[in-house]
């Protein structure tokens, strides 16, 4: 009986889990292997006798060197980081206040407003960039980091607002009522009690917002034209595919270096982030 159970666990749990893990992680592995492969290995046909498609025998850092020395990659990285941080901070601050208001204040049309904010999040960026481009041009922000710092919040704020509204609703009302009796104003209770209690929710909203702006492509492609000012996702694609030639090694090196900061941010806050999405607060 016991043995049979063990066997069942292997089939129903470990095996599917292993398949899933391989399926998820393989692209990252492929990215890493490609980045480390010398050009000679990259551009030979896979039918060749000496082909080793899943590993390399002569790992090299030449693509990383090339990427950092011949392209503006360090600039892209810096731009992406700066834009992601600024737009995340703007969106988080707005989202915290808006989320609190929608969760706690009963005012005329609050429900309608909540739904309206959600709907703006559903408007595809591929439509929204057209009017936004017009605005950016009128305000003479094109080809400056501000073009992205100010347009990313258009989709980040609704997202943060909704995530935080949900989180604020799980915090018992009595906490801030008690704070208000204890001598805090409504604003004071929000800042001193509700926000600190909501830290897991705020962090997960922040991480999501950061990742969304880090990976954003369309706005970055439209609003930034000089090579120096591009972000990683746009820069890698536009500068490392010249004509019909794909610089696979450098492309993958760029992708690898570009995903490292996001992975770091995730791993630092993973605990908060999980409770932020699943947990609620107990008084």
């Amino acid at each position, binding site marked *: 009986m016991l043995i049979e159970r063990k066997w069942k666990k292997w089939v129903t749990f470990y095996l599917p889990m292993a398949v899933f893990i391989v399926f998820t992680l393989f692209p990252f592995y492929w990215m890493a292997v490609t980045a480390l492969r010398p050009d000679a290995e990259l551009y030979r046909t896979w039918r060749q006798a000496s082909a080793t498609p899943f590993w390399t025998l002569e790992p090299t850092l030449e693509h990383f060197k090339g990427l950092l020395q011949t392209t503006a990659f360090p600039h892209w990285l810096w731009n992406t980081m700066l834009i992601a941080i600024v737009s995340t901070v703007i969106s988080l601050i707005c989202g915290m206040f808006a989320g609190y208001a929608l969760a706690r204040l009963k005012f005329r049309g609050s429900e309608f407003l909540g739904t309206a904010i959600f709907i703006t999040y559903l408007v595809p960026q591929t439509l929204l960039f057209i009017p936004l481009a017009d605005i950016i041009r009128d305000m003479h922000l094109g080809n400056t980091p501000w073009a992205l710092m100010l347009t990313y919040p258009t989709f980040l704020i609704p997202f943060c607002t909704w995530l935080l509204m949900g989180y604020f609703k799980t915090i018992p009302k009595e906490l801030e009522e008690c704070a208000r*009796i204890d001598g805090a104003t409504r604003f004071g209770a929000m800042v001193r009690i509700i926000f600190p209690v909501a830290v897991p929710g705020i962090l997960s909203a922040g991480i999501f917002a950061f990742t969304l702006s880090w990976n954003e492509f369309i706005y970055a492609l439209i609003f930034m034209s000089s090579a120096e000012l591009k972000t990683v996702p746009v820069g890698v694609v536009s500068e490392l595919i010249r004509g019909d030639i794909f610089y696979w090694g450098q492309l993958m090196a760029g992708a690898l270096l570009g995903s490292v900061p996001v992975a770091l941010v995730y791993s630092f806050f993973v605990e908060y982030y999980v409770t932020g999405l699943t947990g609620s607060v107990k008084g």
Partner: protein
Amino acid sequence: MANVTIRNLNKNYENGFHAVKDVNLEIRDKEFMVLVGPSGCGKTTTLRMVAGLEEITSGEILIGTQVVNDLPPMDRNIAMVFQNYALYPHKSVYQNMAFGLQMRKYPKDEIQKRVQDTAEILGIESLLERKPRQLSGGQRQRVAVGRAIVRHPQVFLFDEPLSNLDAALRVQMRVELKRLHERLETTAIYVTHDQVEAMTLGDRVVVMKDGWVQQVGEPLELYGRPANRFVAGFIGSPAMNFVDVTISRSSGALWADAEGLRLKVPTELDAGLRGYAGKRVTLGVRPEALHLANGADPAYYCFGSAVDVVEPLGNEILVNFRAGGVPMVARVDPAVRVKAHQSIRLALDPERVHFFDEKSEAAI
């Protein structure tokens, strides 16, 4: 220290629900006033209006001599203990208790001293550095009370503070709260749905139902002279027995008749019931006002029945039976041996019989 005056207080919610109806109360200085009633009776809403957490639709609330209708909660000099404790989860016990004082800009050493003193009173000195999630239910309750008393407010508000505790702890905390109130001598308003808590804690008790105040009085007054059928049934456990009877006059006395039951109306109640001759009223008698009849009981206060179920509780026995067409309970001496289905004869204590108008349900 202050008295609290509530005048013609009303609360209408936006959805049209009229939660509190014309409540008038005068809570004296240092008094422990308990609001009790079934859920939805408006007791918590009343308390929240005193706290300033709920807007007042009409009427006035005074703390001391000041009308507080438009004062924010922070300026009312009150403290409140919530049912779910509402401890700030990210702050230690010390910080929880100090928060109110910090908000009021007390000097640091004063805060330190007050928190320390309060913690000693409540026996939580050793917990000051812990976070709320590391505390048991009873400890959290103590911290919540400590957070309230550390500020020396004019009025304490308690919103069902014991209902999240298990039964044994609830009894213990009840006693502690009473002791604490005697020591602190502060006006307190306490909301509960538990009539035992209301009776044991309150200097006076307000019984509410459907937003109306039913009766205000000292616990024994509510018990002994309930103003209406609701109060009579709500206060006391097991609840008062009610039988619908018809009043009739014969041979110079009033009689109360029901199916298989004929009892003489006690002489003291005669005057009030005279006008009800030929009409139906509700007779109420508490389980402890019934006993097994012996030779000394006059026949016109006795009636016969058969035992349905016996509940021996040790210090007393609850005997369930049917009389006048309804199930009734008598609380009898444990020395008495009764068995299910046995025929018994019961007598009622004529001084402890109540009559209620059938329509208005008011006591006669």
